């Protein structure tokens, strides 16, 4: 008798649990307002990344094409993957002494793991993270970028 009771109880609770599950999916089926998918290419105009978003490493330049980088190479030293190469040059400073300036700040985006050590350790805060995230290119060499803009120079007052 007990086993017969159990047989029907199993059926009852089984069906009940299945119906409970179906209420969840059924509820979402009839509430299209809950859709969470982002319509990515359509919402590009309104898509705003968080301000701290790590899209790529950039070197901010001001309006006069000045940046903060002294070419000290600390970022290169700290990068775990070797994705930064700093090529610096020495020129004659105004007071006759040799001054180190940056020639090229090469950044291999393809090797970067966004550990943010370069941005964090830069003594002059010359590096920052850019918001750009659409990095797909057809050629890997295009991922190697030179961060200092052509003709740019260091902002006055931050030289070594």
């Amino acid at each position, binding site marked *: 008798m007990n086993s017969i009771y159990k047989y029907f109880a199993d059926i009852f609770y089984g069906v009940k649990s299945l119906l409970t599950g179906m209420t969840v999916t*059924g509820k979402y089926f009839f509430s299209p307002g809950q859709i969470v998918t982002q319509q990515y290419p359509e919402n590009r105009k309104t898509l705003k990344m968080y301000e701290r978003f790590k899209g790529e490493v950039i070197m901010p330049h001001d309006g006069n094409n000045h940046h903060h980088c002294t070419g000290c190479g600390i970022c290169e030293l700290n990068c775990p993957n070797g994705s930064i190469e700093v090529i610096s040059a020495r020129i004659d400073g105004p007071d006759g002494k040799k001054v180190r300036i940056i020639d090229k700040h090469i950044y291999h985006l393809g090797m970067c793991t966004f550990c943010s050590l370069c941005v964090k350790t830069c003594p002059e805060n010359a590096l920052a993270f850019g918001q750009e995230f659409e990095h797909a290119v057809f050629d890997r060499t295009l991922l190697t970028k030179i961060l200092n803009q052509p003709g740019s120079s260091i902002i006055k007052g931050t030289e070594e």
Partner: protein
Amino acid sequence: MASNIYDTFIASLTQSIHNGLYNALSPFWALIVELTIIGLVFMMFYALVGLFLVYAERKVCAFMQNRVGPNRVGPYGIFQTIADFIKLVMKELVVIKNSDKLLFNIAPFIVIIASFMAIAAIPFSKGLHAIDFDIGILYVIAVSALGVVGVLLAGWSSNNKYSLIGAMRSGAQIISYELSVGMSLLTIIILAGTMQFSELVQGQEYGWFIFKGHIPAFIAFIIFLIASTAETNRGPFDLAEAESELTAGYHTEYSGIKFAFFFLAEYMNMFIVASIGATVFLGGWMPFHVWGWTGFNQVMDYIPPFVWYIGKTAFIIWLMMWFKWTFPRLRIDQLLNLEWKYLLPINLFNILLMAFIVLMGWHF
């Protein structure tokens, strides 16, 4: 009656085509042309329904999962399945080493022919009925079970262990659940006293069988839903495919158009069992009538019978999709347990109950 408008329209259309052909051609050629026309119409219908069902499934599951679903190709993505179909047609047909070539190539056709044959006996509307067997239900059950042969052959000939496991599971599953589908239909046959589809539908003019037969008919409907879901290899009974266990089960090795055949056949099988369910339990193309409410019945009659039929079928298909996108998959032994320990005994008892009710005249 308003539904007579549609009936006479269909009847006169088919009759005029028939008469025209027989006047113009000799009876033999007229028959050939007639068959060809019917075949082409069905093929068109088949492809259309298949494409639409794939789209519907993707949309339904997307909405259940808080997604949008296909929305790129065409407005609301309605041409997505056509694009998919073109992609599948253009894909390479991979030839498997050491596979049984003949069986490997034949299997998708067996599956698709089995589902194609079943469609012939389904009444879409009054008079819109390719062939009206007096044992229509029996025919449909017999033909739709043929598909498992194709599945078994596909699994065997692929020379792939995953496929073989999937095919064997499918064999065990369909043979078991065929029984429950048959039994649950038998319950209604007892009530209706006929196996002919046209008479079955006619018998539901005032009250569908699910209402007429009340408790046993309702139980039979539930069992039919479960068993037919299992018979069409759909989730939660998709053990033959079980993509998290067997990658893709019996059609792992198929590509291109042959895969498309399996894919299409799966959705068509779903359509066919839903049609049978709609016809047998929910009155097929018969509008919703209530005995005595003449005005109400006339309003209902203004909705064409074909729309009634499609609506009911769509409802059952939607139920089956709802099952699939809610439940986790069963294990093979649980699947057989469910059939032999639960569905079958309940079914047998249910038939007895129905027979008793019919005998006592306790149905409506």
